[in-house]
C-alpha cells in the first residue's frame, strides 16, 4: 500500500514538475535564510564566550590608598574566581599609555601631573564564565575600601551582545515567518494539484477509496518537497560557509575562534521543521478541499 502511495506521489511530482520545482526552491531559500541566521547567532555566541573568557578586571585605587599593598593583593586574590592580581603603578600605566600612543607626545608633555591612578589588573580563572559571576566578583572587589572603581569592559560587550540579541530576535521572527511562508507555498501547490485532480479524487471516493488513501500521496509529496528543500538549502549553506569560514577566521576574527557549522542535531531539526512545513501546507490545503 505504501509503495502505491509513493508511486502516485512520484507520478504527481513528475506531472507537475514546474510547480514542484518552484515550491522546493522557495523552501530552499527559507531554509538557507533561517539556517544562516542560526549559524550567525551560534558563532556570535562563541565569540562572546571567547571574549568573556579573556575578561580582566581593572581595579583602580583611591588616591589616598596609593602604593602596592600586599594585604590588598591577598584580599583580591582570595575572592572566589580570581586567579591573580598584578599591581600596576600609575607611572607604569602612564608609560604604557604613552607607548600605545606614540604620536601624541605633545599631549603627555603638557600634563602637569600624572592623572592615572594606581591599579590592580585582575586575571580571572578560566572556569569563571557568565556575566553574572564576573559582575559578582567585580562587586566584591569594589567593596574593598581602597578601591575607587572597577572596570571590565562590560558596557561595550553589552552593546555587542545587544546587537547579537537583536539578531536572535529578528532571526526567531524570520524563522516563524519563513516557516509560515514555506507552509503557505506548499499549501498552494497542493491546492493546485488537487484542483487539477479533483475529478480523479471524486471518482476515487465513488469507488470506495478512504480519505487516507486519497490524501496519502499528497502528504508524501509535501514531506518530500520539505525534505528536498531542506537538504538542498543546507547543502548550499555548507558550500558558502566552507568558502567563507577560513577567510573570516584569519581576517575579521583574528583567530579568536574557529567558526563551526551547524551540528548534526541542528541539521536534523531544520530538516524535520522543513518537512513539517511541507506536511502542514498539505494538511491545510486538504482540510479545505476534502470537505
Amino acid at each position, binding site marked *: *500500500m505504501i*509503495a*502505491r502511495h509513493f508511486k502516485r506521489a512520484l507520478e504527481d511530482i513528475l*506531472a507537475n514538475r514546474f510547480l514542484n520545482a518552484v515550491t522546493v526552491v522557495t523552501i530552499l531559500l527559507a531554509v538557507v535564510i533561517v539556517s544562516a541566521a542560526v549559524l550567525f547567532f551560534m558563532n556570535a555566541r562563541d565569540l562572546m564566550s571567547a571574549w568573556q573568557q579573556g575578561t580582566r578586571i581593572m581595579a583602580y585605587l583611591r588616591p589616598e590608598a596609593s602604593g602596592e599593598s600586599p594585604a590588598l593583593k591577598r584580599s583580591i586574590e582570595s575572592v572566589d574566581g580570581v586567579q591573580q592580581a598584578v599591581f600596576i603603578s600609575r607611572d607604569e600605566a602612564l608609560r604604557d599609555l604613552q607607548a600605545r600612543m606614540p604620536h601624541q607626545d605633545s599631549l603627555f608633555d603638557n600634563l602637569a601631573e600624572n592623572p592615572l591612578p594606581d591599579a590592580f589588573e585582575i586575571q580571572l580563572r578560566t572556569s569563571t564564565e557568565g556575566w553574572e559571576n564576573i559582575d559578582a566578583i567585580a562587586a566584591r572587589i569594589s567593596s574593598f575600601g581602597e578601591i575607587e572603581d572597577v572596570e571590565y569592559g562590560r558596557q561595550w560587550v553589552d552593546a555587542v551582545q545587544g546587537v547579537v540579541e537583536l539578531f536572535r530576535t529578528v532571526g526567531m521572527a524570520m524563522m516563524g515567518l519563513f516557516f509560515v511562508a514555506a507552509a503557505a507555498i506548499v499549501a498552494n501547490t497542493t491546492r493546485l494539484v488537487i484542483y487539477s485532480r479533483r*475529478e*480523479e479524487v471524486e*471518482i*476515487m*471516493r*465513488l*469507488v*470506495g*477509496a*478512504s*480519505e487516507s*488513501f486519497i490524501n496519502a500521496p499528497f502528504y508524501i509529496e509535501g514531506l518530500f518537497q520539505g525534505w528536498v528543500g531542506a537538504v538542498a538549502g543546507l547543502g548550499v549553506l555548507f558550500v558558502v560557509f566552507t568558502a567563507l569560514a577560513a577567510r573570516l577566521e584569519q581576517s575579521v576574527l583574528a583567530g579568536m575562534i574557529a567558526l563551526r557549522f551547524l551540528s548534526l542535531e541542528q541539521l536534523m531539526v531544520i530538516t524535520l521543521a522543513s518537512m513539517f512545513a511541507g506536511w502542514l501546507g498539505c494538511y491545510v490545503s486538504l482540510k479545505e478541499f476534502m470537505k
Partner: protein
Amino acid sequence: MTDHEEKLPIIRLSHVHHVYGRRPALTDLTFEIFKNELVFICGPSGAGKTTLLRLLYRGARASRGEIVVDGIRLEDLPHARLPLLRRKLGIIFQDYKLIPGRSVYGNVALVLEASGHRRSLIPKKVHGVLRLVGMEHHADALPPVLSGGEQQRVAVARAVVGDPKIILADEPTGNLDEASAQAVMDLLRGAFIRGTTVIIATHDKVFIRRMGGRVLHLQQGRLAASELVAKLHDRTAL
C-alpha cells in the same frame, strides 16, 4: 408465500423525500429491493431516476425519510464511513467517469487498491474481469482513445471487479449504439446471474423487455407503479 417474502431486503426506502432548493425531486418513496434482484428504475427525464441512485450511493443525503442499504442506515452514516458503503456497491455512470490519465487496467485496479486488496492478487483479478468484458487487449490503453462502448465496458469491469453486493447503473446505455448497448446490458445481466443485485436506471423499454426484471416507474419524483416484466423468449422467468 412469494419469492420476495422469502428473501431479505438489501435496500429499503421508507417515506423518502428529496428536494433541490424548493423543488421536490423525490416524494414519499417507499419500497424494498431484495438480494439478487434485477430492478429497473424507469421514467421520463426529470422523473428522479438519477437522484434516487445518488441517494443510494450517498452522493446526496435524503431530505427526509429512511434509506437502509445492506444494513447501513444512510442518514446516520458519517463521512468517514462512506467508503464502507461504496465498497458494497459497483456504480456505473452514463458518462463512464473513468480517470483519463490512468490506463484501463489502472482504472479497474483502483477499486481493489482502494479497498486494500493484496497487491499480488490484483493483476489476476483485473485481467480476469477485463477478459469478461472483452477489454483485455486494451488493458494498457488510456480511456480517451477508446470508443464510448469500450469505455462503458471498462466502467462495467470497474463496477464488478470488487465483487459488490449491489450494482447501480445510471443510464448505462444512454450514449451507446445498439450493439454496444446490448453488450453492456449482457454484462449487467451476467452480474445478476452470478448473484449480484443489479439496479439500472433507464428509459429504454426495449432492453427491459429483453432482460426482464422488476420495474419501478417514477413519475415526477413519485413511485407511480411497480411491475414484473418477463424476459422476452424466456417462459420460465418471473
